[in-house]
């Protein structure tokens, strides 16, 4: 039927690791080459499938860390009791192949250069990964949209992409809060994201901002709830939950 979008099958593809880069002691970024990669939008994710010699299969979802138009990058945090992440963060080497399907998702994406809509990104721990894609995308397309990232991390050494985030580009602001340990002389915020911090950092609701919240489930529930309390319409607060991966 003319004009009807072609329904696309989501198929597993073989991805070859081209580079790995440590981000923190427990986090690393992996770059892949996928011959038929269709491209992605900022905020989407992929599924990864690992098959053991005995046929046991484990699947996990990981947010895409690179901007649309860049090679596919995933940033993975090693979870101590994880089944997949220790392999991805410690074993995987350039030249290795794994199975990936994607890109996936249409809800938690940002693709706008609308200068009238300020964007608030709130990240808990590795929840910053899709926001790195959005920030890079914003810079690549020269978007004038004002963007503020509020990033909650345990300590400064736990901050992922720190060098990159220190140069966020025109009109983008990065605000850190360190929940467990602050370096001597730390002038930034301390403690968890709460109503007081959001009142200070979040765009006022009368500017009709769009908010994205990503991180551990408990973090997302609290932050999204507080943003709605500040007057953000619920449908302007997009959420993505990573589960119980430890408090940021």
């Amino acid at each position, binding site marked *: 039927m003319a004009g009807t*979008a072609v*329904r*696309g*099958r*989501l198929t597993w593809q073989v991805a070859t690791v081209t580079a790995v880069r440590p981000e923190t002691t427990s986090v690393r970024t992996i770059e892949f080459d996928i011959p038929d990669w269709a491209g992605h939008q900022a905020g989407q*994710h*992929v*599924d990864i499938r690992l098959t053991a010699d005995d046929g046991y299969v484990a*699947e996990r*979802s990981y947010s895409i860390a690179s901007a649309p138009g860049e090679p596919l990058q995933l940033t993975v945090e090693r979870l101590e009791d994880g089944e997949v992440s220790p392999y991805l963060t410690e074993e995987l080497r350039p030249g290795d192949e794994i199975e990936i*399907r*994607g890109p*996936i*998702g*249409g*809800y*938690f994406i940002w693709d706008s250069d609308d200068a009238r809509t300020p964007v608030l990104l709130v990240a808990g721990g590795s929840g910053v990964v899709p926001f790195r894609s959005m920030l890079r995308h914003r810079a690549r397309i020269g978007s004038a949209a004002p963007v503020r990232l509020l990033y909650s991390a345990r300590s400064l050494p736990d901050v992922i992409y720190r060098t990159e985030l220190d140069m966020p580009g025109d009109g983008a602001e990065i605000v850190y809060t360190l929940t467990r340990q602050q370096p001597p002389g730390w002038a930034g915020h301390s403690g968890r994201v709460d109503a007081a911090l959001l009142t200070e950092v979040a765009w006022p609701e009368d500017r009709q901002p769009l908010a994205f919240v990503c991180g*551990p*489930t*408990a973090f997302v*529930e609290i932050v999204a709830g507080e943003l709605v309390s500040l007057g953000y319409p619920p449908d302007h607060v*997009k*959420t*993505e*939950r*990573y*589960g*119980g991966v430890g408090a940021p």
Partner: protein
Amino acid sequence: MTERLYGPDDSALDGNAIGGLLHEIFSTEMTTAEATCGHCGNTAQVAEAVVYVKAPGTVMRCRACTSVLAVVVRKQEMNCVDMSGVAALQAG
């Protein structure tokens, strides 16, 4: 009992987490589809549902009333899908 059996807990994810699984089943992007709960009538995007992936099978619950919207169980290469808790599903 103080434990919340069915409310969102730390292990709960959301509909984003099953975007791949639902795409596999419906052959299209489904996280922006709007699902209406057959129990309370709440309509929300699939991405906003409460999702448990560590239950026996994958369970999707209404964020408003916690009723089960859908259960997907994989048997070898086949997905068994029970969506009897969804009153309406509108593509996004």
